[in-house]
């Protein structure tokens, strides 16, 4: 039986296909259309999933959609009725897409995908819960879903046992931790639903002391947090419920200044505000999770929703709460909802046995050596072929040690926002100048943003103060842990200003070539840690195809591209007629 999950029309549309309860393929539409956070019906992602399974759309038994569109529309209308007449500009802006697409989901699916079978609609937060729990290693777990907003729900908790999930309580729009975080993201001049992670990266530059950060105390006025973790926002500080902007004038007055211009300069005040919102979020999460444990008495925890991508807090969960194990799906935000919809339909609605556990995030397209060779030959690109995996790893490790920046494209593309060694840019973490070099050559990103380390799972505890045993979400770069003090100066390129690192741990079973490369690098440098950053330029989605990878290398300062068993040197090939720096944007 084939079930196709679809999520779209908000942000990060995606598709996931399962066969008899096992995930066959999952990918986000942006990787194919090259439009970051693409919201459209994921026609290309669906095509890819079907191709991977070797079936046509007629062979799909069910399509599961990631929300109930009419419930969401009801919430939208309620906003406009409540905020009449101030909401007209947003009404005018939003309605055409609702009338043309969002209220006609079945028609759109049937027309654009040529699908004739059953279409199932599942509530947004249930899909989030399913996306994490049903592919986790747990047979029972406490569940927390927390994001900007679904239909009405912004936060919910519940319990999951066997195939069933029950969401017991929830908090409704407009009261949302996700939207509070997004409001501060907008206030700091970053783009909403995109750059929240920048606020997380900026926070350690600010004052992280709860006692002395005045903005922390000010932001606590904005949110009324109860002992049971429930909360309400003081809506006089926000305008997102009737405008396209988010902070109100009152919030600007509270934070002692106007909204920062788009990608404007960041000063100490802005850093302190970023720290304040991170602290407030952490407070709320800690109280909520402790209450959840009190209610459920369970040892295992699964989290989902956009806020579950807050890796800084994720690394503190097991230390701040009585939970013993935590699991987070690599694509925890709306991008991963298609996967949750497919599994909820198969395991819960149809009651079929759970047979799948997500052990890696490599669910996207792969390109064989033959396909890569054809691409290189067709485009007259100069390359050399490695004779063996051993040669590939040794040569690449040597190149990295010689201060080169490597584009690394191997196997199936990752699922989720993080590059995890399938579409990564790799370089030397021990080189103090590597952060500058990467920013200059490739990423063109803000100076305050850290680069992430990747380390083999068996070495992680030596260099990082991780929970032990290392939680599985660390494999998906979802946990930030302190770098052990004695190593901080030795891996400066991946040690953030507060001494932390958002590490990815790798097991050999997940990605042997990647694992062996890190070990080879360790033999040369004495420290088996690499910088792993996403293979893209700022403002573009992560690369997908050999063409995307080659184009990215030729428009940037990436020195070598290791693609399958082939090595392409940038200097051996004519430089492309485009400049990544010019295009770098959010």
């Amino acid at each position, binding site marked *: 039986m084939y079930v196709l999950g679809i999520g779209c029309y908000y942000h990060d549309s995606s598709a996931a296909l399962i066969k008899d309860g096992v995930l066959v393929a999952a990918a986000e539409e942006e990787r194919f259309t090259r439009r970051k956070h693409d919201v459209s019906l994921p026609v290309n992602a669906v095509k890819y999933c079907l191709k991977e399974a070797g079936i046509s759309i007629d062979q799909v038994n069910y399509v599961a959609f990631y929300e109930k569109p*009419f419930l969401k529309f009801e919430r939208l209308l309620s906003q406009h009725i409540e905020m009449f007449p101030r909401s007209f500009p947003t009404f005018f802006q939003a309605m055409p897409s609702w009338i043309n697409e969002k209220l006609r989901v079945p028609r759109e699916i049937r027309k654009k995908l040529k699908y004739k079978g059953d279409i199932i*609609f599942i509530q947004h937060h249930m899909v989030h819960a399913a996306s994490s729990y049903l592919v986790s290693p747990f047979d029972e777990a406490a569940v927390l879903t927390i994001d900007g907003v679904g239909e009405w729900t912004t936060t919910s908790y519940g319990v999951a046992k066997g195939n069933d999930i029950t969401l*017991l309580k929830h908090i409704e729009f407009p009261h949302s931790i996700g939207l509070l975080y997004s409001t501060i993201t907008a206030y700091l001049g970053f783009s909403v639903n995109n750059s929240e992670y920048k606020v997380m990266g900026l926070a350690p530059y600010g004052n992280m002391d709860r006692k002395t950060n005045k903005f922390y105390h000010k932001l606590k006025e904005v949110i009324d947090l109860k002992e049971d973790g429930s909360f309400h926002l003081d809506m006089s500080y926000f305008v997102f419920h009737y405008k396209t902007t988010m902070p109100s004038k009152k919030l600007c007055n509270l934070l002692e200044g106007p909204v920062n211009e788009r990608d404007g300069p960041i000063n100490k005040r802005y850093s302190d505000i970023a720290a304040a919102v991170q602290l407030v979020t952490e407070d709320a999460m800690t109280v909520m999770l402790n209450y959840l444990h009190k209610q459920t008495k369970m040892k295992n925890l699964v989290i989902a929703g956009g806020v579950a991508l807050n890796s800084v807090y994720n690394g503190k969960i097991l230390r701040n709460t009585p939970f013993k194990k935590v699991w987070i799906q690599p694509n925890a935000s709306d991008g991963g909802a298609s996967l949750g919809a497919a599994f909820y339909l198969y395991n819960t609605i149809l009651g079929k046995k759970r047979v799948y556990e997500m052990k890696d995030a490599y669910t996207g397209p792969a390109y064989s050596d033959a396909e890569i060779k054809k691409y290189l030959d067709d485009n007259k690109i100069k390359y050399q072929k490695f004779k063996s995996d051993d040669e590939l790893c040794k040569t690449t490790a040597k190149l990295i040690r010689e201060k080169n920046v490597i584009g690394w494209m191997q196997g199936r593309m990752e699922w989720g926002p993080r590059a995890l060694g399938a579409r990564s840019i790799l370089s030397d973490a021990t080189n103090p100048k590597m952060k500058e070099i990467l920013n200059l050559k490739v990423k063109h990103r803000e100076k305050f943003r850290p680069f992430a380390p990747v380390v083999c799972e068996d070495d992680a505890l030596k260099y990082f103060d991780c929970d032990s045993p290392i939680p599985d979400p660390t494999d998906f770069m979802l946990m930030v842990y302190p770098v052990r003090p004695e190593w901080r100066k030795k891996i400066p390129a991946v040690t953030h200003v507060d001494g932390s690192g958002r590490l990815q741990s790798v097991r050999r079973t997940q990605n042997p070539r990647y694992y062996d490369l890190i070990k080879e690098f360790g033999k040369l440098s004495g420290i088996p840690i690499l910088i792993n950053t996403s293979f893209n330029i700022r403002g573009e989605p992560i690369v997908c195809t050999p063409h995307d990878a080659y184009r990215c290398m030729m428009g940037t300062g990436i020195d070598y591209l290791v693609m399958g068993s082939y090595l392409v040197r940038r200097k051996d090939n004519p430089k492309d007629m485009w400049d990544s720096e010019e295009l770098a944007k959010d």
Partner: protein
Amino acid sequence: MLCSKGPLFRGIFLKLMFKLGRWLGFFLGSLIFASMLFFIMSRASRIDMNLVNYMVFYSIALFVSFIYAAFKIVRARLEGGVWNEIKAGFHDFGKYITNIVNFFLLLIVYFIGVGLSSVINKLNKKKSLDLTSRSSKSYWKDYNLKKEKKSNYYRQF
């Protein structure tokens, strides 16, 4: 090919063709639309359906359209074939007209539908959205969302 741009004269010719294609698409779209609109207007009012009236009507429509199209063409990315550009021209015109029609329709819907509901709600002191930061003991609301009958999942609400 990834790196080649082709000979200069070929590039200029293609650029010209693409531009012409987009203009042509836009022109055809506006011609069809203006003809239909003129026909409807002449039936609904007492405007004579003669060529002079039509030319005046169409000239105004075309003038506005050309300004819009010129703006779009400057911004247009010269990708795809000439036929794509013709289609894009049609599409631009469609969007242009849709936006205008939408504005008036949505204005009516908003002020009559949403506005009236809002007034009735306010008279009944009913809230559509909980904007209060009331100080109750807990803000958690009962949800109890669990597995339902399969037929419920076919609904979009």
